[in-house]
């Protein structure tokens, strides 16, 4: 049965689009939405409601839609809960109805509807409590399964999304008469204008009036000609944020089966607007009456849209139920399209247009309402009665057009913190005095009628131009005002008759639910909303929100203005995760930072690990080691202890510090002194936070009297720089100090091991590496392979070691040269794992020990706290809690059974089964020197435990390992090797 009109509409009838709904094939046209195409095909039952599983049809013709929600597409592109009226038809579209089983027509859970008297608002708060264990096991799974609407896709999204940052003078949201006029005025004044329209065609209400097509087309064309105007159809402004920033989503390819190559599916616009015009129109309201949720009930404005724009007759014989004049336009248009008008029920006792309609032969029943809807799954009969319920008559009709008036679309205005004023004239909230640089225009502030809206839009455009100081504005052509006698609409919300009257069609909230909430004390609008879930569905109550508030107001005996609306929040329409996430997902979640030697590591089979944004080689598996990473790690560490290894340490933060006061500055940042450091020497430094907790450590060298080179840990590089900037710029601005990060300019590599000198001496030119000439903590410039290098004799591994820094572009030749020079000594590249092992053997602290809780004393570094002079953290480090003797202190740990494994994250307890933690294992690794696992830990009592035994408890694995407590230096207690 086709409901497609023979002519008219904004369709391209030459383009036939095939699509399926619940597996059945249908045909529509270009210009159709899924809703209009199904309607044209006579499909009315399109879904089931949330709670009672009642049959649902198409209520609206736009994003206000509460009930006609479908699953769209299939597989990885499946999307749940798509409102049919915003789904543009494309060839091959697949849609499924939702929330029904086994089928839409025979849905088992529609028994909920019969049980509905037991399921009033909030019923679950009152029951399901006994027996207690049944909640998770029985009740909740049942609730969870029956709740929810559609199924989301289960796979990764194959499409991609784009972000766009925009700036403009004037953002206009909405392209109806008001929006077009505002945009045109601003554009003519030379402003940079962005016009966003959520629909795929520009024009809003203009699209429904062929008489205005010329003005619409001419205005759009004039805008399109302006180079500073960006027209964005299919773009919903979803939120209004601080500083006049708005978010919008452009549906670039949702009207296609798949996005074209290189095109995003959707685009997320962040729009920074100097001025904003909100011309977002109005939402037509439903009226609460029994059966107002049944398929075949359509809002009057939507019906007009289906007729005029989509050339569909939404029924054959209609009843129109209204409290206002506009619905008469629908009635007349229906009749013109061949739809019989059974009657118009107008709640008003009299209306000019009622008389006109009567004269045209329509049965208008003034002072009348709809008290019920009969039929099986959709509208077959409509009962019309006097307002007091008398003279009820059941009329045969398959279409019931309803209009409860219009509520301005104030979502965005309200989000921008504009207060809402009640307007008696339109029985709705309108935006009050704006707070941000914004104004509403047209239906969005209760100015209805095309000419009026256009002229209001022009006024808003002029105001925006004036606020921008752009000077004079041109006059533009506006649609002619049509003088027409009318009758004010009468606020009307609910027909009280027996049966469920819905205020929220998606969440199945009835007028009785609202009254129940009120009776139980949930009488504040926000309580009533939460108790009943009214206006909490995907449509956020666009068609019924105010109706619910009105029912509540009546129950409270107060005005709707006093009751108010629940807070408006983003999103004006739901927004997909993907579009806001944009490109920064999966492997692009965070940019990858690579050292200059990255390619070398890749070529040599390194396994990488993430360290913040960095990728660092963890180890370099060799043939035969694939099965067990420890083999590689131990081999690498052993090479360092026995011969020589080389490690990329480029990720350490490096900061160049200069200036007359550089030394003083460093003295205040570090707990120890740097102003006394000789030129050509390095020193280990410790930094505290101002609260006395250890912040960072590293070596800093003096290159000249007024020039230092500082290093930080990889993790804290950025924070240390910021810390320095804070102190230099705000605390001690008088100091002559200049510094900047040079982490990326220098690549650095550590050559460590007893043979390090032998290996390096062959590669390094221009520097005598002999112990006497270049002792521990010496710094000097040299060349390797013709490249400039700076050599630091510092060591993290505890071996004789040199850190060789070179400008990053020379990293590979320098590294290769050292590798070549060290080949005869068995030089071995080692990764972060081996580095960790070596430092644990040495008892050097790192991230695991510096976790933001430890003091210098805790780490056994109290000797680094200078006695005199100010430094960051000095005072608060002395608080009693931070110097308490029972604080955990750094110790070494070894399992008593040399075969036993020690795990980081274990706790130290006195006996198996003891719940009292004395400390914990911060780091653990198998040792190459000791042939057993070793660890570092923080232990209350610290050195008092040396040579005593405890248990490392790992109850997560039910493991207890007996450990001996040792000095943290497992290897080379005397620190002789580094000086060798």
């Amino acid at each position, binding site marked *: 049965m086709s409901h497609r009109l023979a002519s008219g509409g904004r369709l391209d009838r030459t383009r036939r689009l095939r699509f399926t709904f619940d597996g059945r094939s249908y045909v529509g046209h270009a210009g159709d939405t899924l809703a209009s195409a199904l309607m044209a095909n006579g499909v009315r039952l399109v879904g089931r409601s949330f709670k009672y599983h009642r049959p649902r049809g198409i209520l609206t013709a736009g994003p206000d839609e509460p009930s006609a929600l479908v699953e769209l597409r299939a597989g990885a592109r499946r999307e749940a809960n798509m409102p049919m009226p915003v789904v543009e038809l494309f060839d091959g579209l697949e849609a499924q109805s939702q929330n029904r089983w086994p089928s839409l027509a025979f849905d088992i859970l529609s028994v909920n509807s019969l049980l509905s008297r037991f399921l009033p608002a909030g019923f679950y708060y009152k029951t399901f409590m006994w027996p207690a264990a049944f909640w998770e096991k029985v009740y909740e799974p049942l609730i969870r399964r029956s709740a929810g609407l559609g199924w989301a896709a289960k796979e990764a999204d194959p499409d991609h999304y784009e972000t766009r*940052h925009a700036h403009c003078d004037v953002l206009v949201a909405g392209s109806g008469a008001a929006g077009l006029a505002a945009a045109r005025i601003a554009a003519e004044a030379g402003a940079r204008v962005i016009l966003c329209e959520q629909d795929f065609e520009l024009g809003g209400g203009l699209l429904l009036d062929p008489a205005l097509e010329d003005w619409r087309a001419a205005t759009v064309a004039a805008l399109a000609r302006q180079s500073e105007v960006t027209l964005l159809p299919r773009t919903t402004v979803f939120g209004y944020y601080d500083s006049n920033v708005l978010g919008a989503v452009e549906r670039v390819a949702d009207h296609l089966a798949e996005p074209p190559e290189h095109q995003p599916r959707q685009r997320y616009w962040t729009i920074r607007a100097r001025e904003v015009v909100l011309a977002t129109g109005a939402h037509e309201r439903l009226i609460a009456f029994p059966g107002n949720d049944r398929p075949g009930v359509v809002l009057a404005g939507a019906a007009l849209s289906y007729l005029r724009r989509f050339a569909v007759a939404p029924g054959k014989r209609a009843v129109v139920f209204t409290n206002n004049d506009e619905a008469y336009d629908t009635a007349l248009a229906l009749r013109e399209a061949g739809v019989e008008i059974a009657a118009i029920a107008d709640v008003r006792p009299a209306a000019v247009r009622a008389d006109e309609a009567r004269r045209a032969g329509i049965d208008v029943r003034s002072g009348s309402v709809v008290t019920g809807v009969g039929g099986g799954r959709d509208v077959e009969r409509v009962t019309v009665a006097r307002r007091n319920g008398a003279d009820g008559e059941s009329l045969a009709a398959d279409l019931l057009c309803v209009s409860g008036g219009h509520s301005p679309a104030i979502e965005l205005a309200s989000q921008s913190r504009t207060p809402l004023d009640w307007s008696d004239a339109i029985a709705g909230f309108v935006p009050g005095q704006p707070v941000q640089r914004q104004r509403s225009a047209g239906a969005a502030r209760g100015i209805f009628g095309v000419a009026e809206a256009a002229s209001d839009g022009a006024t808003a455009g002029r105001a925006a131009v004036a606020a921008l100081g752009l000077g004079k504005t041109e006059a533009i052509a506006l649609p002619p005002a049509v003088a027409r006698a009318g009758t004010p609409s009468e606020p009307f919300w609910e027909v009280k008759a027996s049966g469920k009257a819905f205020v929220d069609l998606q969440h199945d909230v009835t007028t009785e639910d609202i009254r129940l909430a009120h009776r139980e004390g949930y009488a504040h609008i926000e309580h009533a909303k939460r108790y009943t879930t009214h206006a909490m569905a995907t449509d956020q109550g666009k068609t019924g929100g105010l109706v619910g508030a009105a029912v509540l107001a009546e129950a409270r005996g107060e005005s709707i203005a006093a009751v108010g609306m629940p807070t408006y929040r983003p999103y004006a329409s739901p927004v997909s995760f993907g579009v806001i996430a944009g490109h920064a997902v999966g492997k692009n979640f965070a*940019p990858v930072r*690579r*050292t200059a030697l990255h390619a070398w590591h890749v070529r040599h089979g390194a396994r990488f690990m993430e360290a913040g944004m960095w990728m660092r080689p963890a180890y370099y598996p060799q043939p035969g080691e694939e099965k067990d990473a420890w083999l590689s790690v131990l081999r690498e560490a052993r090479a360092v202890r026995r011969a020589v290894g080389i490690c990329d340490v480029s990720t350490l933060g490096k900061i160049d510090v200069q200036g007359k006061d550089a030394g003083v500055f460093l003295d205040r940042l570090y707990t120890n002194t740097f102003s006394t450091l000789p030129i050509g020497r390095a020193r280990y430094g410790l930094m505290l936070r101002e609260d006395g907790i250890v912040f960072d450590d590293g070596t800093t060298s003096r290159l000249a009297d007024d020039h230092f080179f500082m290093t930080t840990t990889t993790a804290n590089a950025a924070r240390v720089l910021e810390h320095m900037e804070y102190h230099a710029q705000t605390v001690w601005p008088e100091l002559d100090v200049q510094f900047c990060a040079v982490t990326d*300019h220098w690549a650095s590599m550590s050559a460590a091991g007893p043979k390090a000198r032998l290996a390096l001496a062959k590669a390094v030119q221009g520097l005598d590496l002999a112990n006497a000439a270049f002792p521990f903590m010496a710094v000097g410039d040299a060349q390797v392979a013709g*490249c400039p290098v700076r050599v630091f004799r510092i060591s993290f591994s505890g071996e004789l070691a040199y850190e060789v820094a070179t400008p990053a572009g020379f990293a590979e030749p320098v590294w290769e040269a050292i590798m070549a020079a060290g080949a005869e000594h068995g030089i071995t590249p080692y990764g972060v794992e081996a580095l960790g092992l070596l430092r644990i053997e040495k008892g050097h602290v790192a991230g695991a020990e510096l976790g933001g809780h430890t003091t210098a004393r805790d780490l056994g570094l109290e000797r680094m706290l200078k006695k005199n002079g100010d430094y960051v953290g000095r005072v608060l480090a002395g608080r009693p809690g931070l110097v308490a003797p029972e604080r955990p202190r750094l110790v070494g740990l070894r399992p008593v059974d040399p075969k036993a494994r020690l795990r980081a994250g274990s706790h130290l307890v006195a006996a198996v089964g003891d719940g009292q933690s004395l400390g914990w294992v911060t780091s653990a690794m198998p040792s190459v020197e000791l042939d057993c696992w070793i660890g570092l830990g923080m232990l209350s009592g610290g050195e008092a435990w040396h040579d005593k035994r405890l248990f490392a408890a790992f109850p997560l694995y039910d493991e207890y390992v007996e450990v001996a407590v040792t000095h943290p230096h497992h290897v080379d207690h005397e620190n002789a090797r580094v000086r060798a």
Partner: protein
Amino acid sequence: MPVSAPEPRSPLVQALKPGRHGAVGARQVTLRAYRRSLVQLQARKGRAADLATAVRQGLGLALPPPGRAETSPTLAAIWIQPSAWLLCAPYLAEGDLARSVRAAVGSAGAVVDQTHGKSVLRLSGPTARAVLETGCRIDLHPRAFAPGQAAATPVGHIDCILRQLDNAPSYELIVASTLAEAFVDWLLHAAAAYGCEVLPPD
């Protein structure tokens, strides 16, 4: 005998393969890596005026005010921080730029070589602005940003120094070398809708 330094390797040479990326069409942009010497110059406390004079006399360039870049035939100076500039010149020999700047400014400024720490790119073409707008949050419209202007600002989650060179428009993008590969990954993706021709490095 000291051997002479090899050509320094730029991470972009690896990452940026010459050729066409993304869509084919008339709206494409061009992208090219540049080998540059870079030096960060910072005035010593209270010596900003001396520094400006020294640079003008020694390097023939006026140090620009905030938000701007100044160029001479051989050198560009970009304001990056109060009393701090990034100087940028064609790469000649290692350390040369830093040495000559140091000689020119004497005790008036701190000079730090950043040649290897930052990578220089140029994005050019009528749609270059549209490409950047997918990740750049400042207003690049000609009314707001023009040749001679420069800004430090993140582009696609990576901090960047951005300078407009001409009205093609062409933009110079300076990013940390360790993030350069990630940056061009992002940039090529951003440009794919228009198409991007990667030219061999300069």
